[in-house]
């Protein structure tokens, strides 16, 4: 297997980020520390499931903007209903997220509408619903035991980050071993062809949006539990980083490529970047700027012109080495 390929790129970017940060740190140990790893994993705990769901919709060449709204709404639902039984609150939140995704998926497939428009509507609706449910108040969650449990450190992990990692692993295995993974790639790479070949395109699309909603809801609910609070406004800043993570993780906006593990690496990369820059004492706006720079660099690497040049360069060097070594 080639070392520099589309498949290995997310992991290489992650590695490169760690190395660059470590070099900037010059061996003082601020970056290469348990604290950085822990912090990155916490970032993954929150963002990972959201990015995972979003990347599934990107895999079939759609886009789910509503994840950010569902994320916040689910937190509010969980805190509102989970007072007596946290499990009930969590179930209700996930169900709400799944239902939101299901409805949007149905609209997109049945009415053949572009997902950007539909899920933009979904985003605004879910944000609005959260305000209605909470009466525009910040909610507090009384069950501090649960909050402490969810944030408790188990080595470098917390229960939340373990859930996120387990989800990534489960999805990775499902997409690899089950026919559904091939069908999703087929839908993303050529929808008409997939349909002609006998793939149940519409059903799978609805499933993808339902899953995306459920994953965002799960993550939002768990975060609210662990913070012991929920507010309709505070939790919606996940959309941009989740998209960035998916793209860094090798998910193409033109559909058909990307894996759960790659996306996880993408999220971790962003987490490491944040944690590392914090450790180096960089100001908060440096996070966004560096994230932007990395994204831009990846996008440029993908530009057709650059790639053609690169491939020509490769063949050139290869033929040269071949002629040199008779």
């Amino acid at each position: 297997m080639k070392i520099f390929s589309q498949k290995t790129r997310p992991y290489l970017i992650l590695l490169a980020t760690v190395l660059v940060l470590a070099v900037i740190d010059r061996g003082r140990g601020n970056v290469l520390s348990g604290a950085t790893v822990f912090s990155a994993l916490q970032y993954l705990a929150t963002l990972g499931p959201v990015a995972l769901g979003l990347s599934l919709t990107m895999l079939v060449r759609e886009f789910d903007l509503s994840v950010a709204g569902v994320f916040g709404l689910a937190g509010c639902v969980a805190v509102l209903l989970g007072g007596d039984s946290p499990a009930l609150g969590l179930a209700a939140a996930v169900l709400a997220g799944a239902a939101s995704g299901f409805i949007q998926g149905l609209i997109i497939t049945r009415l053949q509408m572009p997902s950007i428009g539909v899920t933009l509507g979904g985003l605004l609706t879910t944000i609005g619903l959260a305000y209605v449910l909470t009466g525009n108040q910040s909610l507090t969650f009384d069950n501090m035991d649960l909050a402490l449990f969810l944030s408790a450190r188990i080595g470098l992990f917390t229960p939340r980050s373990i859930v996120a990692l387990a989800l990534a692993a489960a999805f990775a295995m499902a997409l690899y071993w089950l026919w559904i993974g091939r069908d999703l790639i087929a839908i993303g790479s050529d929808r008409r062809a997939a349909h002609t070949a006998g793939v149940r395109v519409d059903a799978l699309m609805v499933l993808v949006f339902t899953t995306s909603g459920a994953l965002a809801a799960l993550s939002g609910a768990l975060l609210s539990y662990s913070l012991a609070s929920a507010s309709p406004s505070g939790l919606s800043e996940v959309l941009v980083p989740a998209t960035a993570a998916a793209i860094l993780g090798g998910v193409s906006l033109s559909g058909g490529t990307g894996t759960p593990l790659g996306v996880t690496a993408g999220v971790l990369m962003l987490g490491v970047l944040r944690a590392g820059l914090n450790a180096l004492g960089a100001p908060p706006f440096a996070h966004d700027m560096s994230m932007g720079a990395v994204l831009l660099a990846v996008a440029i690497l993908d530009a057709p012109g650059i790639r053609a040049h690169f491939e020509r360069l490769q063949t050139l060097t290869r033929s040269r080495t071949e002629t040199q070594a008779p």
Partner: protein
Amino acid sequence: MNSLLSARDLTISFGPVQALRDVGLDLRPGEIQALCGENGAGKSTLIKVLMGIYQPDKGVVEVDGVARRIDNPQHAQQLGFALVAQELSLAPQLSVLDNIWLGDRSVPVFHRRKALREKARRALETLQVDIDLDVKVADLSIGQRQLVEIARMIARDARVLILDEPTATLSDVEIEHLFQVLRKLRAQGHAILYVTHRLGEVFEICDTVTVMRNGAHISTGAVSEVSREQLIETMLGRSFSDMYPQRLPGQGSDGLSVTGLCIDGSFENVSFDAPRGKILCLAGQIGSGAGHVIRAIGGLAPLTSGRMFLDGQPLTSMSRGSTIAFISEDRAREGLFDRSVVENLVAGQWQDHSRLGVISWTSARRRAAELAASVGIDARRLAANAFDLSGGNQQKILFARAAGGKRPGVILMNEPTRGVDIGARSEIYRLMRDLCARGYCLVMMSTDLEEVVGIADIVVPMYRGAVVARYEAEEIDISRILLDITHPRNAGEVVHEAVGH
């Protein structure tokens, strides 16, 4: 031998239009049957009925002598019918193996089974196709993809193969390989329904030929008992007067001249003179670079080096726009807009039909009507969406647009009659001659040698990115050109390249 598939009295209407009228069809095991007819003859409707996409109003389809109702494409697949459509149904991002089993409901939930792999490998072996199961389809040539599509059908135990214009996008070498595969399948007892516009293929590969016209079955007979002219006359329903119009006398003047054109990895040192009033045709297989040369002259691909002159004046990117028009072989993507015929016809000339920036629809419609009349598009279709027109009429829109400039310039064409039925085709050829008479300079590329020989005044064969020769008038000879574009000295090598990796 008994029929594998037998259809009788198939009738279907869409609103007031009767698309099929009492159509019958018999397919026997080990038979390749050609299905011919102009666009609109009902071929695709018939296929869609057989594949369960449409339900007939009347009539029966018998499989192995048993009358069947075909509910949907999946059901048709279970009955052993398989359609290889013009647009392939392969997912480029998946491997060959995954594509072979894509969408097959019988595949278990955990799909990475040895048995499936083995069956796919056997299917490829049956076709004697050397393609790696783990290669991404995106990395295969068009010809290889088509073979994968056929292998998919074989792996799924298809007995009746329906091929819809399978050679439209293939090079000659790939076509030859496809034919070998089809002959093998015939010998194994598969029945093949072969839909084509290309009459040469009917005589080369098919045993029987069925002709349809206006939704009705006209005739079925052994290929050996009909002549080419008879076949065309049956399809057209009228006598076959010369398909290609007379060439114009005279030498032609000035025109386009290119020297030393080169794009790295595509073609090099291409030079020719294309005088006004003449049709110059680059002949070559897919991969010969001929199509790229046309695109490059049109400014659609950056040249590495080379110079171009029109009437002795150097062509620059500034002067090019108004004098050079390009007609793509891919009308849907590179030619037409998803708008009305009027808007398509006057596209790019809006400034002539607006006052202070405000569009004058009266003026635009008048101009569109003139242009439509000049190429023979029915004036009643002007308000229709361009994509609802037949391939021939779509091509006429592009010709009208290309020839709508104030002064005659250069018209570049790639495969000008692809997807155009035989009736409209002769109209297109006549249009091309009219343009010559008006002083246009026509430069085209075609992989259809019969067309090259029939229409061109000057033929420039290309092979592997280089110009091989130049023929004019009496020198134009189909066998000589065929040799040039397939390079007989290394013919074996060419075959290997085109169908191997």
